[in-house]
């Protein structure tokens, strides 16, 4: 690496289109799983909020899933989803996101103050109606907080997929390392962090829009 600067700006200038394509691919493989997980977590969370007996074992399972190193899971999936396919990376990322979002949903529903719950019942909401019309909307700040954690983690994790051939921006790390050329690595780190920050910002805005009543952080 002697004499090689940390960043060769002209390389970045020459490869803008390439970097954009990688960033887009990265966004898809990391954020679509979060979306899928969210669509699964909400109904599952509502069910778990009504049936705590279901939640206990599910939470235990997801707690373990959450601890599994991504690289190991990617590798184990290869025989089923193929090398260098999107699915190999996206299936585990969906599971990780779900492991964050399910507890976030359930915690959010549980965090609805008891007096609000009581009032809703007394005003004549049935149990399911109350869950959907009062408790779920009231727990949106928690849910968004969960999505923020899941999305940022997913974006950073997806890069590891480069080791099994599909890592979006992660490819820049492999490429830079093999050529002993730090510029792509630095660009990759910067883009991953930027993508994460931009997503996070969008989610904060989404919360302002969806839950203007939650002043400041998650209530």
């Amino acid at each position, binding site marked *: 690496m002697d004499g090689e600067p940390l960043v060769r700006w002209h390389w970045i200038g020459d490869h803008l289109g390439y970097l954009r394509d990688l960033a887009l691919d990265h966004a898809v493989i990391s954020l679509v799983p979060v979306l899928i997980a969210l669509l699964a977590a909400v109904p599952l969370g509502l069910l778990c909020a009504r049936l705590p007996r279901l939640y206990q074992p599910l939470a235990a399972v997801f707690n373990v899933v959450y*601890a599994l190193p991504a690289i190991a899971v990617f*590798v184990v999936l290869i025989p089923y989803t193929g090398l260098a396919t999107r699915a190999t990376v996206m299936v585990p990322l969906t599971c990780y996101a779900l492991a964050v979002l399910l507890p976030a949903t359930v915690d959010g529903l549980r965090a609805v103050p008891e007096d609000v719950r009581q009032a809703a019942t007394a005003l004549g909401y049935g149990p399911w109606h109350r869950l959907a019309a009062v408790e779920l909307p009231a727990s949106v700040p928690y849910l968004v907080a969960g999505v923020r954690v899941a999305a940022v983690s997913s974006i950073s994790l997806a890069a590891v997929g480069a080791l099994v051939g599909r890592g979006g921006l992660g490819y820049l790390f492999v490429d830079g390392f093999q050529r002993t050329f730090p510029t792509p690595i630095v660009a990759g780190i910067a883009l991953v962090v930027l993508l994460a920050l931009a997503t996070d910002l969008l989610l904060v805005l989404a919360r302002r829009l969806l839950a203007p009543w939650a002043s400041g952080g998650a209530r």
Partner: protein
Amino acid sequence: MNWLGWLTTFFTAPARQSGPDAIAHRIAEHLVFCGEALLWAVVLAVPLGVLIGYTGRGAFVVTALTGAARALPTLGLVTLAVLLAGVGDTAVLVPLVALAAPPLLVAAAEGVRGTDPVVRDAALGIGLTHRQVLARVCLPAAAPVLLAGLRTATVQTIATATVAAYVGLGGLGRYVVDGLATKDYPATVGGALLVVLLAVAAQLLFAPLIRRASPPQARLTRRTRTRRTKEPR
């Protein structure tokens, strides 16, 4: 697609029984390296976190660090470190410590900050010095949160160390990375399985520790919610 076949091949190969590529040796490598990284992370992050939590100053540092650390790509840091500092375990140690420290810092800060202020005031009121309050009141109360942070950091380090095999680090990641490179699928899967087992074992090992560190009423009501501070991979 024959799991039994792959695993049998992997576990019975002579190279796995002795020598540098032996399973026991790789596990030991993995554990030693992770332990070293964790030790550094604890030494660096915990005192700072305790200080932030006790004084209430610099809380924004904690918020910023959690966010940033969660966004940083492991593989990027590891490859960059090796390119900049040259191949070798020390170079890899830096990103590992960097990724393990934030959850510990956050846990220490939040754990200490979360001590019941009434109890803290009472302790000062009956004549304890700040140092004594910290040692006898805050730290015991923060222990469960701190342990949960250590669990997160441990699982995170085990995962990062696996990825670091890509830049030449020893340990269980060697099986996975070398297996992928040489299309030796039994080695890849076997290595992955061992990594998973190690991570789950670490995760489970902490459960009784955290429970024991929790105050009695929390143990009774089983409401020790351990917070997720950082991706554990």
